[in-house]
């Protein structure tokens, strides 16, 4: 039995083991074909929750006095629609629903960070699973999947607005001019610009959520050092409660902000792709 397996069964022996344990995915397969089951399960589950929540609002929608839930959903939809309207001036029947999906879904996935740290692992433990990372956006696979999807959408908008030939023409002539000598530098610059978008989008969300998760773990370690009613234990427990509360409150801002940024950048990139040079 290796050290990690031992920790999975008997509980962590020290702080490094505790954190490494919490950073291990429940995965099957090896190498390139590793499937992080916890990430896939949580993201699909939260996607279904998103659909169910909005579906229930649309079922019960009335043109009379709206209920609280309907008013809230209307606020969210209107907010997203306005954000799209401000930046993206073409037909937004595709982009606005996409932006709404991204916003709500990423928000819910980020919000998993606010669950008590050991709770998901304990629940998974009831089913005999020893590793369960509950925040799907703290997994690079999720954020890159989303940003690459956005990347495809952006290219689709570019081709739709300019035509395949027009887009290719722009790739080779855009920043410096149509002189054949400049084709290669133009293309190289455009390539860097295009590729930097999905990478920065994915890394931003991942970095924020991963760092947030780790800070929660470090705070949890303060309380985990409890060793009876000694003064040191009580001080670290007080620190645990205070810092945990402070970081959780600050994190509410971060998870909303990151969901909002992901949505706005999707819209901005799409709008940029449709502009003619």
């Amino acid at each position: 039995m290796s050290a990690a397996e031992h920790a999975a069964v008997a509980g962590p022996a020290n702080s490094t083991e505790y954190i490494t344990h919490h950073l291990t995915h429940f995965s099957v397969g090896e190498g390139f074909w590793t499937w992080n089951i916890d990430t896939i399960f949580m993201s699909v589950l939260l996607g279904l929750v998103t659909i169910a929540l909005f579906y229930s609002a649309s079922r019960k929608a009335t043109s009379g006095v709206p209920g609280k839930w309907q008013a809230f959903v209307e606020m969210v939809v209107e907010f997203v629609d306005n954000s799209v309207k401000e930046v993206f001036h073409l037909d937004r029947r595709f982009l606005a629903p996409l932006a709404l999906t991204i916003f709500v879904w990423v928000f819910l996935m980020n919000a998993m960070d606010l669950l008590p740290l050991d709770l998901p692992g304990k629940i998974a433990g009831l089913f005999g699973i020893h590793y369960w990372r509950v925040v799907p956006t703290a997994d690079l696979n999720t954020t890159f999947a989303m940003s690459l999807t956005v990347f495809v959408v952006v290219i689709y908008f570019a081709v739709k607005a300019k035509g395949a030939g027009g887009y290719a023409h722009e790739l080779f002539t855009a920043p410096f001019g149509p002189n054949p000598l400049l084709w290669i530098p133009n293309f190289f610059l455009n390539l860097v610009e295009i590729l930097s978008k999905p990478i920065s989008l994915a890394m931003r969300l991942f970095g924020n959520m991963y760092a947030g998760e780790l800070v929660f773990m470090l705070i949890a370690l303060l309380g985990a050092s409890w060793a009876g009613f000694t003064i040191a234990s009580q001080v670290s427990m007080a620190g645990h409660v205070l810092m945990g509360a402070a970081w959780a409150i600050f994190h509410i801002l971060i998870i909303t902000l990151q969901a909002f940024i992901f949505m706005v950048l999707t819209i901005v990139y799409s709008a940029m792709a449709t502009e003619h040079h």
Partner: protein
Amino acid sequence: MENLALIAQVQGYTAIALGLIIGLGAIGACIGIGIMGSKFLEAAARQPELIPTLQGRMFLLAGLIDAAFLIGVALAMFFAFANPLLARFG
């Protein structure tokens, strides 16, 4: 015994690197947020009617400015708890 010294050396260098990653990142992010915040307050004092528009953009930019720093922090934390450079020593 020789291995132990090597491990200690890698750990020491990693610790210095972590400090640099987080510290330099924090300097950059703080200066960025400071400049943006001061400009926002200036603009809000000049034209209070623009505050709602500017506030949304300020938060958006705050998230963007913080991002590189937080990516750095995440990377540093990763090296602090699961140092891949040490894996070579078994």
